[in-house]
């Protein structure tokens, strides 16, 4: 029996190298696909949100005039209370009118007119909190509300 070293040596064939010249093109295609179908995450979501399902859906237009409101339980921390997150920060319902005013002031006038609140609330949120938020939004004349949801496939 031959020693192991020489056994490998004799098996040495030259494998022709694969032409990978088109690989960057392929990856760029995938990259462009993702750049088109996705959009940048505007803010870090600090609460756990599982939106309800619905059928009569409309798409949210005018991204520049959208205020995101998330309602859910925080990911971190021991408290299991539902919290409101407006754009990037956790707020209380009483703070919402002031925040909306600040956001509206920073927008261009035509965007401020179209100001829409995208409400992403967890499906188990009690309605009391949602009603407080809605009342706060009404006080600050942010009257367009978009209840975010996913498509219901069955039924």
């Amino acid at each position, binding site marked *: 029996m031959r020693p192991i070293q020489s056994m490998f040596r004799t098996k040495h064939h030259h494998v022709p190298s694969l032409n990978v010249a088109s690989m960057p093109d392929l990856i760029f295609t995938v990259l462009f696909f993702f750049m088109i179908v996705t959009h940048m995450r505007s803010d870090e979501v600090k609460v756990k949100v599982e939106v309800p399902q619905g059928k009569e859906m409309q*798409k949210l237009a005018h991204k520049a005039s959208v205020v995101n409101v998330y309602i859910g339980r925080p990911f971190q921390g021991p408290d299991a209370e539902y919290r409101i997150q407006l754009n990037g920060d956790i707020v209380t319902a009483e703070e919402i009118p002031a925040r909306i005013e600040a956001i509206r002031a920073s927008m261009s006038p035509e965007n401020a007119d179209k100001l829409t609140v995208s409400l992403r609330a967890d499906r188990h949120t009690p*309605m*009391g909190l949602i009603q407080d938020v809605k009342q706060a939004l*009404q006080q600050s004349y942010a009257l367009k509300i978009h209840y975010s949801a996913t498509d219901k496939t069955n039924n």
Partner: protein
Amino acid sequence: MFRKRYRQQIPELNTTSTADISFMLLIFFLVTSSMDTDKGLLRQMPPPPLDHEQPVDINKDLVMRVALDADGQLTCDGKTVSVRQLRDEVRTLAQVNRTGHVVSLQVDRQATYEAYFEMQNAIVGAYHALREQYARERYGRSYGLCTADEKAAVNAYYPQRISEAPTTDASSDGQKGGRV
């Protein structure tokens, strides 16, 4: 002199790492972007009631009272209904009295958002079905394919007359309507 220079072969650029660079870009975009589609129910709230504003009296016969209790049970004018039944009820009401009816929503503070959303979905679905039907009769095409003017005409023909009075202060009867 020049000829000699042209004969020189230009060395090929090594593009092996382009794949790695584009992979890094790809991964960066995958991490920083989200794919969640912005779909949902678009609703319009009425402006906050002014102090000097007098609530409008509405004939009780025209009002359908829809209530959602803490257990997520829907009641429509006192009788228990399912989401689908509610949809049919709203559709019948809006068809019979197009511009005079009012759907009054009463939501318990302990009810879940999901139940509320399903209720809204059913009501909006009833109006959408009516508008779709009218758009087909009037313009011969689906509501979604109508022009903005035609949509406005259809919306005016079947207006959404929904009132959401807050449950916290039952004494004040300020009408909080919602329409699109």
